[in-house]
């Protein structure tokens, strides 16, 4: 049995989520808009996305002959 995981997809999921979360935090004045802060939140998002890809539960099993 082989498990098909998607770290690259998780990377981009985290990238977009991180950038989106950062911009929303900036626009509501929760954090100051700095490139450093944008970078930190984006990197955190990327790490979370990659980790998600590796710990995601296996959803289905398709037999292949």
């Amino acid at each position: 049995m082989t498990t098909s995981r998607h770290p690259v997809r998780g990377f981009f999921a985290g990238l977009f989520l991180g950038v989106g979360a950062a911009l929303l935090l900036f626009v509501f004045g929760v954090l100051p808009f700095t490139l450093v802060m944008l970078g930190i939140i984006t990197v955190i998002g990327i790490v979370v996305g990659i980790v998600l890809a590796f710990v995601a539960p296996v959803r289905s099993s398709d037999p292949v002959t």
Partner: protein
Amino acid sequence: MNRTLRHLALASVAVLAVLAPASAASAADASGCTLTVASTSADGKPLDTASAPGDGGTEAHPFQVDLGGKVAYVGKTDAVITDGTYTVTALGVTVKTDTVTNADKKQTAKGEVDLSTVQSLKPLLSGGVKIPVQGTLTGTGGSCTVSGYITGVGSATSSPVFYAGLAAAAIGLGLALWTLFGTKATVVASSAAGGAS
């Protein structure tokens, strides 16, 4: 850790390393000079004031500006600075730089800036966005640095940053769900398994 993961981690560190030098001060501050500013709205009403060093322009209470209005300023340097260069940065990025001769050897400067001519930050300066800014004057006789935070007027939902953030978060959420539900186990049934011996 496999090769893909290692490359992604290295890419993340590289991005952070590139962005790290763009750090900004955490509070309004001035060295080598003092600066007092007062902003007015597009319809000419007083909006906000700040002094560096002093009150206003901090991260907690950023100096509010209306990009349709004006900012009046009064600045004084501790020493006579001639033949210098001034640089204005926002978000850690240089937005304006020019030279100053100061042939009259003045230590004070007073004037007004019409912000309608400074539109490069317009998409960012709305809602509650707090942007770090820094001004530096360096020349013969000394130097002067002023830093603080500015914010715009209007609601957060009127800002393009809000919609950009919402769109990015929605795409990220979609990709995250795809990642989550796309993880599959595949049973490879060998043709020899269970076959005739």
